[in-house]
């Protein structure tokens, strides 16, 4: 419930494919050209290019300027945002439990006024 933007949706959608995850894992160890990225997979280069396009649109990778090679590299920010979603999960529970404190106080008062002690 804390998906903050459509960017985050795009990131998670991009991450939902095993080939694209493998590409990101490869790029985590350094930039690589399209050919280098296609190598370990049994798919065509156009197919790899389509995956790269999805990753690029989600902002997860960018391409370098080195003329022919145009190496792809991993981008830090969207990944960090996806990770901070997990931190939000923790904060969410802190907030919920503070609401529960308030509710329990009300319930205690209500029980007292009704003299319904166990």
């Amino acid at each position, binding site marked *: *419930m*804390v*998906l903050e933007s459509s960017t985050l949706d795009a990131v*998670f*959608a991009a*991450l*939902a*494919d*095993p080939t694209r*995850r493998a590409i*990101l*894992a490869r790029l*985590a160890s350094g930039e690589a050209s399209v050919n280098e990225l296609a190598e370990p997979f049994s798919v065509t280069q156009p197919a790899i290019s389509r995956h790269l396009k999805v990753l690029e649109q989600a902002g997860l990778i960018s391409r370098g300027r080195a003329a022919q090679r145009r190496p792809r590299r*991993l981008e*830090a920010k969207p*990944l*960090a945002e*996806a*990770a*901070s979603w*997990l*931190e*939000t*999960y*923790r904060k*969410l*529970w*802190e*907030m*919920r*439990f503070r*609401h*529960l*404190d*308030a*509710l*329990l*106080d009300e*319930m*205690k008062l209500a*029980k007292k006024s009704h003299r319904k002690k*166990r």
Partner: protein
Amino acid sequence: MKNTLQVTARGDREIVMTRVFDAPRHLVFEACSKPELVRQWLLGPEGWSMPVCEIDLRVGGSYRYVWRHSDGREMGMGGVYREIVIPERVVATEKFDEAWYPGEAVGTLVLVERDGETTLTQTMLYDSRQTRDAVLKSPMETGVAASYDRLEKIVTSMPAQGEERESRAS
């Protein structure tokens, strides 16, 4: 601080949340199991309401929660009760409609009363260590570089079709 939320890892696949409440156990149990009470505290961040809160509190019964944002976004989850001991223990499965972790988690709620205070312990058991670690670790602890490793774990453990929608409407 006394009533602080503690989040810790246990074993390979569990997250344990502990919190003390200044109230007797039967009240805490009620607040955790009656829909009209649950929807008062089990909220999302600013802007989210909880239009659906259905609880069929019996073994094999199901529950269903849906949160809605004022901009129209929705998020739903639900599961099935496996064990119920009023007012001290509830075991239930948990799955989000748009799961961001693989498989189904199992949650165990345990309430222990002492001197009028109740310690709530919520244990979540995940499918794998990777999933558990992804849920538990906060980026605050480490920083962006390390969040790569973590994200890689999440990424490699996500289901191939991330968009599977399996609602467990009761």
